[in-house]
C-alpha cells in the first residue's frame, strides 16, 4: 500500500511539474523539432556527442592510455602512421591517437570552464546594469567598453604572460576578456524586458531586486546567451590552443592540442603527421560547436523564425 502511495505522489508531483512548466516544455519540444529539421545542426550535435563520448570513455578508447601522461617509448620515436599507431607517434614515442583522444577531454573542459566563467560573471552584471540604470549602469558599461575596445587576444596573452604561463592562467586570461560580451547581451535584453508588465508587477509587489534579477530577468534573457555560449565553447578551445601554441598556455607533457602542434612544428616537414592531426581535431571540434550555435540561433532568434 505504502509503495503505491509513494508512486502516486511521485506521479502527481511529476504532473504538477508538467503543468507549471507546460510553456517551457512546449518551447523545448519546439526547439528540438526545429533543430531536427536542419541537417547542419544535426551534424553539429553529432560531432559534439561523439566528442563527449571520446572524452568520457577516453581511457577505454585510447589504445595506449598511459601515453597521454608520463609513458615514454624512446624506441618508437616519430613513427609514421601505421598499424597499431594509426596517427603515428611523437618525439617521445607516444601514440598520437591516444594523446588526441585524451586531448578531447582537456579541450572540452577548457571550453566549458572559459565559457562558464564568462557567463557567471557577465550575465549577472548585465542584468544588474540593465535593471538598476543610472550610476551603476554607467560604471559597469564603461568597464565593459574598456575591455571591448581592446583586441581580446592581445589582452589574454598579456594576462597569461603576466600571471605566469600555464593552462589554468590561460583559462582565466581568456575568461577575463570574454565576460563583457555577455554583459552587453544581457543588458540589452534586460532593457527591453524591464518595461514588460510582468516585471512591473513584480516590482509593484515589492519583490526584492535580487529575486527579480535571478528569477525573472536572467531566465528570460537566456536565449541569446545560449547561442553565444554554444559558439564560445568552440572559440575558447581555439583560443586556448593558440595561447598554448605561442607558449603562453599548457606546458609539456600535457596532451593539449595547441601545444602538440607547437612541438610537432619542430619536426616538420619530415614528421608531417605530428602537427597535422591535432589541428584537424581542433577544427572538427570548433566546427561542431559552430554548427550547433548557428542552428540554435536560427531556432531561438524570433526574427528568423517563419
Amino acid at each position, binding site marked *: 500500500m505504502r509503495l503505491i502511495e509513494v508512486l502516486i505522489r511521485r506521479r502527481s508531483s511529476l504532473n504538477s511539474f508538467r503543468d507549471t512548466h507546460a510553456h517551457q516544455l512546449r518551447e523545448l519540444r519546439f526547439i528540438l523539432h526545429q533543430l531536427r529539421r536542419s541537417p547542419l545542426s544535426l551534424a553539429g550535435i553529432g560531432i559534439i556527442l561523439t566528442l563527449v563520448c571520446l572524452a568520457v570513455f577516453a581511457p577505454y578508447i585510447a589504445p595506449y592510455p598511459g601515453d597521454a601522461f608520463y609513458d615514454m617509448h624512446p624506441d618508437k620515436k616519430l613513427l609514421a602512421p601505421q598499424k597499431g599507431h594509426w596517427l603515428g607517434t611523437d618525439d617521445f614515442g607516444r601514440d598520437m591517437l591516444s594523446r588526441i583522444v585524451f586531448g578531447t577531454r582537456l579541450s572540452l573542459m577548457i571550453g566549458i570552464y572559459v565559457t562558464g566563467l564568462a557567463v557567471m560573471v557577465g550575465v549577472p552584471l548585465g542584468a544588474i546594469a540593465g535593471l538598476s540604470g543610472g550610476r551603476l549602469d554607467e560604471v559597469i558599461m*564603461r*568597464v565593459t*567598453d*574598456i575591455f571591448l*575596445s*581592446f*583586441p581580446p*587576444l*592581445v*589582452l589574454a*596573452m*598579456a*594576462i597569461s*604572460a*603576466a*600571471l*605566469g604561463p600555464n593552462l589554468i592562467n590561460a583559462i582565466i586570461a581568456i575568461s577575463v576578456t570574454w565576460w563583457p560580451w555577455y554583459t552587453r547581451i544581457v543588458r540589452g535584453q534586460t532593457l527591453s524586458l524591464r518595461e514588460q508588465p510582468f516585471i512591473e508587477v513584480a516590482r509593484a509587489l515589492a519583490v526584492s531586486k535580487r529575486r527579480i534579477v535571478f528569477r525573472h530577468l536572467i531566465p528570460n534573457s537566456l536565449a541569446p546567451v545560449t547561442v553565444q555560449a554554444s559558439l564560445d565553447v*568552440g572559440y575558447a578551445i*581555439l583560443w586556448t*590552443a*593558440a595561447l598554448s*601554441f*605561442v*607558449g*603562453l598556455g599548457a606546458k609539456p607533457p600535457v596532451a593539449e592540442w*595547441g601545444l602538440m*602542434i607547437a612541438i610537432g*612544428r619542430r619536426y*616538420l*616537414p619530415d614528421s*608531417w603527421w605530428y*602537427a*597535422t592531426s591535432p*589541428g584537424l581535431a*581542433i*577544427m*572538427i571540434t*570548433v*566546427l561542431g560547436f*559552430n*554548427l550547433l550555435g548557428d542552428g540554435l540561433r536560427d531556432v531561438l532568434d524570433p526574427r528568423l523564425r517563419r
Partner: protein
Amino acid sequence: MLVPVLLGVSVVMFFITHVVPSSPARLIGGPHATEETIRQIESELGLDRPLHLQYGIYIRKVLSGDFGISIHSRNPVIEDLKNYFPATFELTSLAMLITLIIGIPLGVFSATHKDRAADHATRLFSLSGVAMPLFWLGLLLQLLLSSYFKLLPVGGRIDPLVTLLHPIRHMSGLYLIDTLITGNWPAFKSAVLHIILPTTTLVYFLLATLTRMSRSSMLEILRQDYIRNAMADGLPEKTIFYRYALRNALIPTVTIAGLTYGLLLGGDFLVEIIYSWPGLGFYAVGSMASLDFPAIMGVTMLVAVIFVTVNLIVDILYAVLDPRIRYG
C-alpha cells in the same frame, strides 16, 4: 572616447604587469643575482616606489613620447614599435584589400543564389575558415608550398642576401612600396614572394568571416519591401542587387571588416609567428615570453590607439555609406 579608453587600458595593463609574481628585476639580474643587486636594479627602475607613483611617472613619460627602454632589445620601446609596425601594416592591409575585393561579391553571390549548390559551397568554405586554427593552416601551407613543392620561402619578410646586394631605401617602411618606387626589382620580387603565404593565410581566415557577414546582411535586405517593389517594377536584377541592396547591406559588413582590421593591425600574432614576419605581433609575443614589461605596455598602448582609431574611421564611413546617418 580615445582618452578614457587609453587611460583604462593603461591602468589595467599597468596593474597586470606590476602586481604579478614574476619580478622584472629578478629577470634582468639573472638567476645568480644577489638580493642586493636585485634591490639596486629595482631602485634604478623605480620599482621600489608605491604603485600609484610608478603609474604617474609612467603616464607622464608616455605623454612626452617616452615609453621606456625595452629590457629585451635594449632599444627605446618607441623605436622598436616604429621598426615593427610597418611590417604588420603592410601584411594586414594587403590581406584586407584582397578580402574585400573577393569577399563582398562572394557574399552577394551566395545570398542571391540562396540554398543552391554554390551557396552551400560558399557557406561550407566560410565555416571551415572560421573553425580552422590560423596557425595550423599556416603550417599546412608552409609544409605544402615551401617544403614539399619548394615554390615559396618558408618565412621572413625578404631574402637577407637580396637586401645585401640591393639595399632597400627606407621611406615608408613598406617593402613592397619602397622597392617599387625606387625601381629595386630584385628586392621587390623577393618581397612579393615572401608576402604571398602570410597573406593567403590571413585572407582565408578573413574571407570566412566577411563572406558570412555580407551574405547574411544581404539576405536580410533582400527580404525588404522596397526590393520586392523594385523586382515587381521589372528593374534589372543587377541594378537591384548592386545599387539598391548592396549599399544597405554594406553597413554591417563594413563594421566587421573595420573591427577585424583593427584587431589584426594590433598584431596578427599567429600568422606573424609562423612565418617569422617581423611585425608587431612577433615583437609582442617575444616581449611577453621574456616578461619585457616596458615593451608589453608599449605594444598594448599602441594596439589600443590603433583599435580605437580604426573604429572611429568605421563610424565616419557609415555616414558616407548611409546619408541618413549624421554626426554632430
